[in-house]
């Protein structure tokens, strides 16, 4: 990777490319899809794209879960008792 050393580009950005690459690889480790491929072959644009997709899908999951939770909370009035009981049992 010696060809991709930290070339300070055009003065205005004091951020080294190595730092960015480090962050991108860290991000990549979190993504479930790209984790299995080798890190060399994934470009940062793809990582960013996958990140966006992943965050969107996580948002959707949270939305679905909160819909279900709201239904559950609404229907059962004894939900609170169940909650307390279960949390104590944990």
């Amino acid at each position, binding site marked *: 990777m010696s060809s991709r050393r930290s070339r300070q580009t055009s003065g205005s950005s004091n951020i080294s490319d190595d730092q960015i690459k480090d962050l991108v690889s860290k991000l990549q480790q979190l993504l479930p899809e790209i984790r299995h491929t080798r890190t060399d072959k994934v470009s940062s644009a793809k990582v*960013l794209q996958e990140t966006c997709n992943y965050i969107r899908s996580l948002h959707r999951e*949270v939305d679905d879960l909160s819909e279900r939770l*709201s239904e559950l909370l609404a229907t059962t009035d004894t939900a609170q008792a169940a909650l307390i009981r279960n949390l104590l049992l944990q």
Partner: protein
Amino acid sequence: MSSLQPNVDSTNSEAMQRSNPKKRRKIGHSNSLSLVPWRSETQQRIYSSKLAEALRHVIHRNPPSPPAKSSAGREVRETADRVLASTAKGRTRWSRAILASPLNRWKLRRMHKKVHKASTGLPKKSPETRRRLPVVQKKARVLGRLVPGCRKLTFPNLLEEATDYISALEMQVRAMTALTELLTGGGSLASA
């Protein structure tokens, strides 16, 4: 596997929860912040109990007759996000943004949901050596819109926030799933 520090700084948790503007992050782009370890069981338990507490308040606000509107889900979502942000102890920008203005977030999310640019077709020269290329920049902008409160961040800060945000979201999903299962299991128990 995760390179985030497993240190939970619980000393100034109260101060941080007020989204204290004085306690900024160190200038100097330190890569390793003492972030919340979103993967640990303890964190999840903390979040779950806080969430249960908050949801109980929500139930009390809407009296026993169920709201039966589409807004109920949104309330739960907002509560969950707020509790998530407070668990973050105010160290990250997205958590501060969530705590600061929950209304803005929803409106902006609704408006920007349609702007999905599938930007491909631009040939990528060596991606990271030059300035952040337009492709990467566009993606970064999209990412900045997704993570709350990160529209004007520089690229590396944005990436940092995104990593933390993803871990936090994952934990949120895990905790809410567990809570849902508890409720579905506990509901039948209570009625018996």
